[in-house]
């Protein structure tokens, strides 16, 4: 099967891979790059478990062809903590019990990060809107919404 060369930057590192025709970006990130933070939940753009940031914008990587990431910069949840320091969002998710099984969490965190990067002090409605592409079957969403609001509003957490 013919392969297509694709180059992108992922979590600050340049990568070049050969993608199969029709291979999704999610598949390439998980299999070729080996970053398993983004998850497969549906493969059809309905659950948000595969959400990554591409040039800062949230995208569902399961319904993107790998070629479409060529020349772009991708960020996944495994890049949130830096040098042993966790991100304020991760800290808030931990204290608010915003993850139960943890399967939706990498996608949720990317949706939340995309929001906070643009809107540092969002309203509750903006938070709900930002995670409306992401399904969580465990938490009932309230702890997640509260965690994101807390990360935004709590300066000490932000400088954590």
């Amino acid at each position, binding site marked *: 099967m013919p392969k297509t060369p694709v180059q992108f930057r992922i979590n600050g590192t340049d990568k070049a891979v050969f993608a199969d025709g029709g291979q999704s970006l999610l598949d390439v990130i998980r299999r070729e790059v*080996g970053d398993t933070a983004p*998850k497969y939940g549906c493969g059809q753009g309905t659950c948000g*478990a595969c959400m990554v940031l591409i040039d800062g914008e949230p995208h569902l990587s399961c319904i993107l062809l790998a070629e479409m990431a060529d020349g772009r910069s991708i960020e996944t949840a495994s890049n949130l903590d830096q040098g042993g320091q966790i991100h304020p969002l991760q800290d808030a998710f931990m204290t608010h019990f915003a993850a139960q099984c*943890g*399967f939706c969490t990498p996608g949720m965190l990317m949706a939340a990060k995309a929001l906070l990067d643009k809107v540092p002090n969002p309203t509750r409605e903006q938070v709900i809107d930002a995670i409306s592409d992401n399904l969580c*079957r465990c938490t009932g969403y309230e702890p997640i919404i509260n965690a994101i609001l807390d990360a935004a509003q709590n300066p000490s957490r932000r400088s954590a």
Partner: protein
Amino acid sequence: MLEFRKDLFANERDDNLNEVGKPTQRQDMAGHVTGRTPFFDDHRLDGMLHLKCVRSPHHSARIRSIDVSAAERSPGVRRILRGADVPVNLNTLLSLLAFGEDDEPSLATDQVRYKGEPVVAIIADSEREAWEAVSKVRVAYDPLPAVFDVEEALKPGAPSVNPVYTRNTFTYHDKYDHVKLRFGDVERAFQEADFVLEERYQMSPIEQAPIETNGAIAAPEVNDRYIVYTCAQGLFFSLDTTAKILDLPSNKLHFIGGTVGGGFGGKVDSLCEPLAVLGAMLTGRPVRYVLNRIEEMQVSAPRGAERHYIKDGVMRDGRIIARKMTVYFDCGAYTRLTSYGALKCVAHLPGPYTIPNVSADAYCVFTNRIPATAMRGFGVTGVDFAIECQMDKLAHLIGMDPMEFRIVNAYRDGDVKAHREHASNTALVECVQVAAEKASWPLSDAARAQSSLTGGGGERAIIPDTRLDDGGVRPAGWRPEGTLPPGTRAPSRPQVTPQPSAPRPPPIAAPQPTPASPPPAQEQVPAPAAPQTPTPPPAQSQPQSQPRYARTRFSTVFGTRRR
């Protein structure tokens, strides 16, 4: 954050416990928020193959022929599995507990009984190649009549779904086609009731829909063992099921799991693990069998549909004096766990209320729908939906506030419910009071003064004469052989003194009961491991008068033990 109402339940929890009752960080949280928790599908093994199934497009059909020749020549295909390749191609999950007959093949051979039933498994280099080969398998079917409704399935002449249970009902205790509950005399009480209300309720199947779909990765390990990464909810349950189906000693299997991306009951069926291990055995390579979302929603087992008929006799003052229920659980085509759900249902009836006359028949019925399984309180939550709808209708019927109506009928400490056990740690009265308070729902002073700790016991603790279907009568106080008389458990709260000070009149038990006589001494067995007095710290520990754990009594729960 949880709210602990010590004002309501002062004796519920010792204050000197170190962990219980205090918030604590989960040990897996850091992995979850950094995306590093290893779920089963995050394991990538060299040379990993992918397994996909050919599934029945029919609800019921005879398989005339299976032609895999084109699939065999399809690019990337390494191995094709058929029913004949599965060492023990008939299983039922609870056979590990000697409950139920083996009735479900891993891969269908002669007949399919639900839409989506696996017939052939393809193992290929990639998922895509596996799917391509799936589309090249030719199965010739002769469609058969199917049945989708529980009551239709019980009618004479209905198509027989499952050859192990030809009458379309699960068999309890080797002979009964349903689970029966009899307590008091409902028919007599209906005659005495001011009103009788009969209603029908229907629950749809519910898909657990975990965000992580079901699956497993199996690989040959050293020393002839197989390593299995899985999201199974019951890891050792799944291991033993796999060992049984593959006819392997269980020490040949090394299961790694416990990290479940949402389960809710939908990951107990252990359908992926046996085929993945079989694939690894036959190819010598790691084999990954993961359901995609469509399979997860359409062929992995949901909680089954339920139909409830409830007939209640109620008095003008609010007391329910009789409740009769007929419950049909839609088991689908094969027994997974619904048979057990029906048992839970009957143990739970008549809900959290003290009703002196109760009768119930619960059926676990086979239909040509997707086999049903565990899901969040299955057997109880659906029944509670029906009961609580009925409670609202009854309150409306007699013109009583629905909250107060529940308080009037709530079970209380010291009561004996239809399961013939003493109720303890009851809390419905307080739940209703707090719910009313939070909803600013006006409750009368009398209702607010009620408590689960008072008003129970006494006449409400008497097991009544029970009318049997054959016209015979079980005398007051009768309990099944091998069960404890009520009240023999160590109470976890101060014993309720038999009231007369109760503001609520005791419900009228239709027959005039005589005091419960304790069963003969040899029938006494250790108490089941349940409400114990909180264990004091070792230094002050008292010699225990009862063993901590009861010996297993399959006879009362699961019927006859077969091994």
